């Protein structure tokens, strides 16, 4: 896929990098969405790309910022109401997003494999990259399924908060998928035979 040969190193985000030991290894050019500012987050960037519609990335960025704002507001409200158990409440919205995505990542997936003229739903392990993709896709799908009057940031914030504490529709979706995989475990050998 990449235009670079495989021995090229990934670009580094740090300002000062000690490359004296590896100066012979060429480095890929940095993409234009990389930065070392406080606003940068790898996962955040990925999600922004998924939110984007018709190339309107600035809008997507704005939506995610608003989502984070909503999350922060609700969490601070909770913190004030909490009283004693203040340590358990995370306010960092990016950390919450990370937790939500980790919670929503599936391990297995069903894929249709044809054996003897019959299609079987065979459980197949998911690669790491795809599991992240699915988690974020489910989050967004859940957020986009809403009333017309509710704004995306608001709903997305709620979905992220739900998923971060292991509840909600996204987690249910993941659990359903796992359950189906479990019930189809008898077909698992069709993956290789």
């Amino acid at each position, binding site marked *: 896929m990449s235009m670079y040969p495989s021995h090229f190193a990934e670009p580094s985000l740090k300002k000062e990098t000690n490359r004296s030991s590896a100066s012979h290894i060429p480095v890929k050019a940095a993409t234009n969405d990389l930065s070392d*500012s*406080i*606003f940068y987050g790898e996962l955040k960037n990925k999600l922004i790309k998924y939110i984007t519609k018709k190339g309107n990335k600035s809008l997507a960025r704005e939506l*995610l*910022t*608003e989502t*984070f*704002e909503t999350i*922060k*507001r609700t969490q*601070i*409200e909770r*913190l*004030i109401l909490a009283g004693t158990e*203040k340590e358990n409440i995370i*306010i*960092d*919205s*990016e*950390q919450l997003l990370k937790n939500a995505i980790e919670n929503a990542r599936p391990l297995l997936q069903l894929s249709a494999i044809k054996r003897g003229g019959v299609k079987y739903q065979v459980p197949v392990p998911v690669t790491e990259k795809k599991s992240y993709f699915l988690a974020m896709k489910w989050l967004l799908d859940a957020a986009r399924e809403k009333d017309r009057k509710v704004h995306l940031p608001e709903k997305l914030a709620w979905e992220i908060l739900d998923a971060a504490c292991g509840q909600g529709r996204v987690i249910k979706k993941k659990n359903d998928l796992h359950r189906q995989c479990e019930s189809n475990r008898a077909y698992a050998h069709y993956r290789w035979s």
Partner: protein
Amino acid sequence: MFRKQFGNLSRVSTHLSRNVLAARVASREAEMSTNAAPAEAATAPPVVNEFRTGVGNPGEHSEVQIGKFYTIPMQEKKQIFSGGGLPKQYEQQIKTFTEACLMVRSPALELLNYIKRADLSKPVVRYVLYGDNGVGKTLSMAHVLHYGMLNDFLLVHVPWAPNWMKRPKESANSASQEGFIDLPFDAAAWLVHFKTQNSKLLERLQLKTSKEYVWSKRESTPAGSSLIELVEHGIARIKYASETTAALISELKQLATAGQCKIMVAIDGYNAFFHPITRIFSDNKQRVSPDRITLTQPFLDITNYDWTNGVCILSVDKIAMTEGYMESYLPRYLLGKEGFEHLDPFVPVHVGNYTEKEFTSYIKYYLDRHWISKTQPGFEEQLKFMSNMNPYTLMQLVRGL
């Protein structure tokens, strides 16, 4: 000679090292405050630390408090700002932080100084706040309004004048003046705002009307009835709200000149009264300029200098104009020739971006309120660079952190 040079060098070096030390101490203090401060600040309201001041009365604020936050009690906030007067996003922030905090800044202090020293028996002085977008004109005004409320000024406060020109609730032809347009709902809303701000003071002062106002064949307000009755009539009979506003303001002017009360006029977005483009249309689909709206006349009248015992605080704002007229934030450009001549002579008060001290204090406040959760080394520098120390831009940037 060599010795002299050597001495210089050593002095420089000690100076440098001292600075480094100071910076290191400061940074450590900042870290400690982020860790320790929140726990105590959330529970006990009147905390005093490096970015907060316990002085709640704006009349007592001085240079010492610059860059520090003071808290407006919720009840007073409700009384002054329930009808508007704080920016919407600031309201939201107040709600999230569960405290109404305002930073003491130099433009507001300058204004307060002028007001405290003003001779009220002389004709009113007009103060014009001006500055770039999002720089804190409205909040400076809010600070001064709080002072006014605590010091028994009757507040004549228009939270955002362009609302009347840009998005009026309803417009109707005026019954009393030919060719003029009434904004009955907006006038009534303003009367409600006036009442909530001043009801306590009005009850205490017992101000009376000087002449009889006849609204229609059956309705009239007799001479010698209290101002509250006049206001309540305007609220109850929305049709006459605009005329009531005019009557109320002329009464107030007379009463103030007679020395029965002192008045603080605060109008945000004052230049909207002189901007010919509005979104109000007359019967023949012609744009109505602000001087043909009955509601503007009393407010132009009260900003004139032909009365005493009052202060006028006006702000001119770029976003009060319409597109194509927003090149500069300077009063002469925004007010136009007519408006400038109407106000001349006035005291201009420039509101600028944060200073270094105010900026760090704001960051500390945000950290204390858990609003910034990413504290990599050097994040302040980045925010400073990106926001150019503009208050609104900073607020927008920090949202998603």
